């Protein structure tokens, strides 16, 4: 029941891990991605991506700029030009 989450910048692959849920600041509002999400593509506005490792845990936030999210069969991929922290 884990979602495969990848965060990639032009410089390197920052994250590639199994998580519970990721909340992404989409261009038209935040959306949460759980496992088994329908195929989906969205641009991201600059802001924080929240990563929930397990169901009840506190989210880990990652600041991204210039991003793009893709949900496919093999999980969620966030492409970001810049990642802070």
């Amino acid at each position: 029941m884990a979602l495969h989450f990848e965060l990639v910048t032009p410089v390197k692959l920052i994250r590639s891990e199994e998580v519970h849920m990721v909340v992404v600041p989409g261009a038209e509002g935040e959306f949460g991605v759980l496992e088994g999400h329908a195929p989906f593509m969205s641009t991201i506005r600059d802001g924080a991506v929240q990563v929930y490792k397990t169901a009840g845990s506190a989210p880990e936030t990652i600041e991204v700029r210039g991003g793009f999210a893709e949900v496919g069969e093999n999980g969620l991929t966030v492409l970001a030009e810049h990642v802070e922290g």
Partner: protein
Amino acid sequence: MASLKELKGRINSVKSTQKITKAKQMVAAAKLRKAQAAAEAARPYAERLSTVMGSVAGKIAGQDNAPLLLRGTGADQRHLLVVANSDKGLAGAFNSNIVRAALSKARELREQGKDVEFYLIGRKGRAPIRRAFPSNIGKMFDTTDVREPGFNEAERVATELMEMFEAGKFDVAHLFFSRFKSALAQIPTEQQIIPVPAPKVAAASDAAVEYEPDEEEILAELLPRYLKTQIFGALLENQASEQGASMTAMDNATRNAGELIKKLTIQYNRSRQAAITTELIEIIAGAEAL
């Protein structure tokens, strides 16, 4: 015949040159490893982006409302040649190969009656291109203030190119750089970057993908990013190529210096022997005369 002292001097000078080339070779080897790692690290992003581009662009390409960057201006008159070089020499034919590829393309375009303009990245391409096309150099992008051109530089170049394109300064842009094949082989490569060549359409996506906002807007946002990634990729390839070329060139130089030293040493020893023999003969002749 050179005197002993002169020979000794030459041997020493070749030896110190050899030390320099050897050091440069080792530095290049270390940097090559780093550059290769950087190129490796950049691959996932580039791959994913082109897959996404492929699936989105496939749906939109050919339509009239496709973004300008994808569609082009419709003309094919003014060409911009973006030439990526390094800032430092001592890399064998690395820079001159890229310049040669760019110049031959420029001549070909000029023979077809097209307008040619150059956009130069890096310092080493400036002089030879200015010699061949003194009046066609549009802009020189300076990378001497950073140690290694990275994504920020690629971003600045891409932004500048897109501004020029939107201002209608050119119709087609080509990028020249050196593709890294191995430490021994780097291939000067030409690639059209604007209008963005439609990426290969990915095998018809199975599931209906939802887009937010719609496809066109996503594509409009993806194209500049795609361009940046292409330029960034080229800069990375260039860096790896430069270090590879430098390593090979310096390896050759070190070996040649070694051969030269060997030859000079033999010559030195021969002259020394000759001098000793002459001295002995003189002494013996003197003793016999008594």
